[in-house]
């Protein structure tokens, strides 16, 4: 029995020691014991999803390190796998373990994180004045600037090699019938018209979202506002159904490739460089990335045209971008603002954009020179119908995953176009119901 008591005593001491030591560490969040050569400072926690930072580079790490060198404050980068990020962030918000800085989509995408409760008001910051107009607009919620954004908004369109088109005497299609002719000619010559990275659900969602501006133009009233107030449903809009039906036709005819559902996004560089494919649905700066990876394919001279399904002929930039949000009640909010100021310094902004070719066509800061791509310019030139924002970034409770898997189901024939739209409506209805109560 003595031994028992001794054992229990040891256990309780251990537990007590553990609790004490844990208090110690949690209070000591700000200590910079590591390294030793740093000035004393605080540590900012910074949560992000993995594809949003350090993409193809280490520029975010470099900037964080530079900030530490200059101010002595540390940045603790907490990078989640993409599939876990939304969940991790929601968990941290609802339990009060909120990081000092976290990344979210801008615009309607940010709504699911309760901006009024968690997002600090950054309207009075110096860098807000240097925002490009679109950036100023999409980082605002209820008139307040809530995000520090170093991103780019541009549209998705079909990038093609004009030399290939010229070789077979093809011109840019402006409707489905013309598109079909182009594809048939290409296929007769052993070239797959479009390389579709159809394993990625978000890519199908992006494909679909480009019809938005056209649907808005033909709608009597403000379509997005009516969708967001649940006055009208996707299933009510004929353009959406027609566009989906055209996607299905193109898929069935093999214009998007035989095995498009297997193709991952990362595989697109190699595929497009191989010359076996004539086109691909990408954002405006993608050709810069491709040209960098495969300099021989001449991708920087390729051109773009709007997806001509359902007669679409519009330029459709996304209104969605990724922004950094400061936690409203952070004890270190001052340092967070200091960090944003640091990132907004022209030199650092330049470094950031230099390392992110994908973000160069249309930077969020007016003092960074935009480097439009050939594709972007031709996309606009080929868009006779004008411009408007795509669906993906403008619709409350839009979910790329759900949309993408719905479209895949349609392609496999288990859902009709109208059923895809009805299912999306049903999913959004769930969210409307939940928030009404």
């Amino acid at each position, binding site marked *: *029995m003595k031994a*028992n008591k001794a*054992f*229990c005593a040891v*256990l309780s001491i251990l537990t007590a020691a553990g609790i004490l030591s844990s208090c110690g560490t949690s209070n000591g969040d700000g200590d910079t014991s590591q390294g030793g050569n740093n000035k004393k400072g605080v540590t900012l926690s910074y949560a992000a999803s993995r594809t949003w930072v350090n993409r193809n580079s280490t520029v975010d790490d470099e900037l964080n390190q530079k900030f530490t060198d200059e101010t002595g404050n540390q940045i603790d980068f907490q990078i989640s*796998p993409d*599939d876990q990020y*939304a*969940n991790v962030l*929601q968990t941290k918000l*609802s339990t009060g373990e909120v990081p000092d800085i976290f990344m979210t989509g801008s615009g309607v995408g940010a*709504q*699911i*994180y*309760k901006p009024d409760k968690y997002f600090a008001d950054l309207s009075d910051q110096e860098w807000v004045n240097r925002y490009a107009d679109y950036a100023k607009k999409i980082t605002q919620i209820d008139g307040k600037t809530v995000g520090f954004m170093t991103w780019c908004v541009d549209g998705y369109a079909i990038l093609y090699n004009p030399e290939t088109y010229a070789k077979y005497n093809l011109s840019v299609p402006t409707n489905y019938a013309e598109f079909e002719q182009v594809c048939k000619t290409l296929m007769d010559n052993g070239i797959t018209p479009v390389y579709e990275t159809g*394993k990625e*659900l978000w890519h199908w969602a992006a494909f679909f979202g480009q019809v938005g501006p056209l649907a808005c133009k033909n709608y009597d009233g403000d379509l997005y506002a009516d969708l967001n107030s649940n006055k009208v449903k996707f299933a009510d809009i004929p353009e959406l159904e027609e566009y989906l039906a055209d996607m299905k036709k193109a898929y069935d005819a093999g214009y998007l490739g*035989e*095995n498009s*559902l*297997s193709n*991952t996004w990362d*595989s697109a560089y190699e595929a497009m460089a191989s010359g076996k494919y004539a086109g691909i649905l990408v954002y405006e700066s993608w050709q810069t990335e491709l040209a960098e990876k495969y300099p021989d394919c001449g991708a920087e001279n390729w051109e773009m045209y709007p997806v001509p399904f359902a007669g679409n002929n519009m330029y459709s930039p996304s209104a969605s971008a990724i922004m950094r949000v400061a936690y409203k009640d952070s004890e270190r909010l001052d340092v967070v603002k200091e960090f944003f100021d640091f990132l907004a310094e022209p030199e650092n902004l330049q470094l950031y954009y230099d390392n992110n070719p994908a973000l160069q066509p249309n930077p969020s800061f007016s003092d960074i020179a935009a480097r439009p791509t050939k594709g972007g310019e031709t996309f606009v030139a080929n868009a006779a119908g004008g411009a408007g924002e795509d669906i993906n970034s403008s619709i409350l*409770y839009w*979910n790329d*995953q*759900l949309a993408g*898997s*719905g479209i*895949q*189901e*349609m*392609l*496999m024939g*288990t*859902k009709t176009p109208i059923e895809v739209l009805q*299912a999306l409506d049903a*999913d959004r209805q*769930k*969210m409307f119901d*939940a*928030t009404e*109560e």
Partner: protein
Amino acid sequence: MNYNKIYSKWFWVPAFAIFFILFLLPSILGVFFSFTNWNSMSESLKWVGLENYKKIFESGSSIRPFANTIFFAVMTSVLKGGFGLLLALALNRRVYGRNALRTLFFLPMVLSNVIVGLVFQQIYHPTTGVLNQFLNLLGMGSLAHGWIIEPGLVMWSCVAVEVWKASGFNMVIFLAGLQSVPTDLYEACDMDGGSAWQKFIKVTLPFIMPSVVINMLLNVISGLKVFDVIYTLTNGGPGKMSEVVEIVILNEFAIGNYGYGTAYSTLMFVVLIIISVSVIKRYAAIGGDSV
């Protein structure tokens, strides 16, 4: 002898305390949310009774994830068990390089599922994947398929990956069971002129029955809880063809439908309990009074 003195109850208290406080308690508290409208958008929590469960049963789209999950659990259990048993029987004999073989067959268990998913995505690719290239090489090009994009095949391909990964674990448990078979019984059976099959049925099987049950229990549990293998391999696609319950739960949580998501996971919990209890009961019947 006073057993309570030797086998002090304090022995199980520390383990139980940690397990209960940090694992069981939060999980059970979580069940409460399945009766509420909890979601990331609304400020107040409202009691909705069985509403979430009703929605699950009423929604036609819940059928496929459940069917897929059950298919996956049953198929992987049987195949992992079958291959595991065959491997164990083979590796219980004096084959050359026995230890190396045992090590290699178990090795995939060591890999994280993320790696496994990424690698098999590449292997299964219809044009650039090793599997179809290999079939073409053997002149069996007609057997080449879009392994994870053809609706009829995708679940099988997922099952194959799990079998590849975890048959070795089953093998180890069977090997362990085989050590308990007394060799003199085999000799006795040899004397009687029994065939290999008869030896297996009459001698081996009764002795390894506990390993069969344990393997099946663990296989079914891990099969019903499957998430990351399928998530990294297909993300539930194409469409929702390979969606399993845990993926639905993750998707619901990601859009902030906590109440509904929790109802799903609670439902799974109940199913798992029913299955486990019945297996354990059977286990107890075979293994004597072990529970």
